[in-house]
């Protein structure tokens, strides 16, 4: 069991800065993130995009902001559980909260700060009515081990990088590989597009363009897919697997079932200290909602700062908290 003062769910900019503000008042933090590296959206989606509304930085690359935050919080030695998704929240007998990840790592603390941003990245699913019925028996959204498809027939759907890259890999090991794309052109990395085109010319990949897989047929497991093709009769292809690869999309994920008061996909908080309806659970940054909420990194920093003051009072109800000005004494790590 990892023990700390504040468990922070989400290692994006707001989660990272929480470590700093907590550190100033001698609280320790441990961060959990489903991504394998810190930075959240900034690292995963747009590391090379400039941000213009960080005070003091007329412009800064998202990736650079993450690096600087990591440098800023280094004196407070935060712990990290990366590449694991926070899945379960329970109350322990001693009143602390316990957060368990999908890999079984347990964390305990009096306070939990949910700084989950957009949520966890999950595969985008095409709108096919019985898609879910075949999830364990013929439909995969994420390919963990390509060997699973050796000498099998696969139909891949999608036109982005992941669909193209997997087509190149699977064309070699499958007995039959079909790529279905809604458009005629591909916009992926030039190299992958050329490889796929070459595979199509040499007959290693069957390419169906201007088309969408919109029907799944099988008994118990998937047997064939129906493909609607623009201005052509519908085609049916027998297959062992259907792999819809349409990229990832963030969703709130397991947090939605933790008994928190939600509005749409956001957690409702009290702006006094960004506390939720569960005592000791806070929500800060893009994941929360209150009247007048703005989804800005800047606002998340402010929310984190007020939140740690409240967390302190929960840990030390008898101590008078003195707000520290870093200009007076600098930053003392621990």
């Amino acid at each position, binding site marked *: 069991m990892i023990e700390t003062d504040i468990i922070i769910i989400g290692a994006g900019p707001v989660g990272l800065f929480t470590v700093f503000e907590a550190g100033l008042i001698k609280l320790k933090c441990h961060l959990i993130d489903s991504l394998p590296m810190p930075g959240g959206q900034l690292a995963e*989606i747009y590391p090379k*995009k400039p941000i213009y509304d960080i005070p003091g930085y007329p412009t800064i690359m998202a990736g650079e902001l993450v690096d600087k935050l990591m440098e800023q919080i280094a004196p407070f030695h935060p712990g990290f559980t990366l590449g694991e998704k926070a899945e379960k929240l329970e109350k322990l007998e001693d009143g602390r909260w316990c957060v368990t990840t999908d890999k079984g790592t347990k964390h305990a603390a009096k306070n939990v700060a949910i700084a989950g941003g*957009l949520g966890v990245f999950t*595969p985008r699913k095409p*709108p096919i009515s019985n898609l879910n019925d075949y999830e364990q028996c013929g439909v995969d959204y994420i390919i963990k081990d390509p060997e699973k498809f050796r000498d099998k027939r696969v139909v891949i759907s999608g036109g982005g990088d992941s669909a193209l890259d997997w087509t190149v890999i699977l064309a070699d090991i499958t007995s039959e590989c079909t790529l279905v794309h809604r*458009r005629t052109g591909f*916009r992926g990395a030039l190299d992958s597009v050329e490889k796929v085109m070459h595979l199509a010319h040499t007959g290693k990949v069957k390419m169906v363009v201007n088309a969408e897989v919109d029907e799944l047929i099988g008994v118990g497991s998937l047997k064939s897919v129906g493909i609607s093709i623009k201005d052509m009769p519908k085609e049916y292809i027998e297959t062992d697997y259907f792999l819809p690869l*349409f990229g990832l*999309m963030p969703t709130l994920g397991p947090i939605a079932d933790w008994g928190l008061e939600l509005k749409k996909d956001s957690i409702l908080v009290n702006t006094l200290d960004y506390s939720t309806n569960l005592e000791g659970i806070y929500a800060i940054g893009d994941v929360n909602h209150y009247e007048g909420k703005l989804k800005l990194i800047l606002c998340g920093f402010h929310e984190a700062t007020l939140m740690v003051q409240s967390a302190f009072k929960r840990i030390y109800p008898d101590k008078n908290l003195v707000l520290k000005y870093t200009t007076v004494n600098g930053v003392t790590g621990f």
Partner: protein
Amino acid sequence: MDNQITVFVTDRDGVRHSLEAPTDMGLSLMEVMRIHELPVKATCGGMAMCATCQVYVESDHELREKTDDEEAMLDEAFFVDDEKSRLGCQIKINESINGLEVTLAPEAES
């Protein structure tokens, strides 16, 4: 009124809304739809990365050409109509789109 245009958005229940939008604030159509509390998730916050603000353009306004980011997203989105689909976050509110008529695309499951 100066610096103000009107755009028309038909929601997923078929109700047509008339939205007033200022042209001098650098807003996108997605943001205007959010301000008027239309059911647009805007998960990615306007970075052409989620397609939750996808609309079908019904009027013949000339819109700015799609960027590579927008094209790439529409490649992977669902319910896409190649003639009409655009991402609301990539449509800038300015004088040239006064009277624009759009319909919200269906929501995709995730």
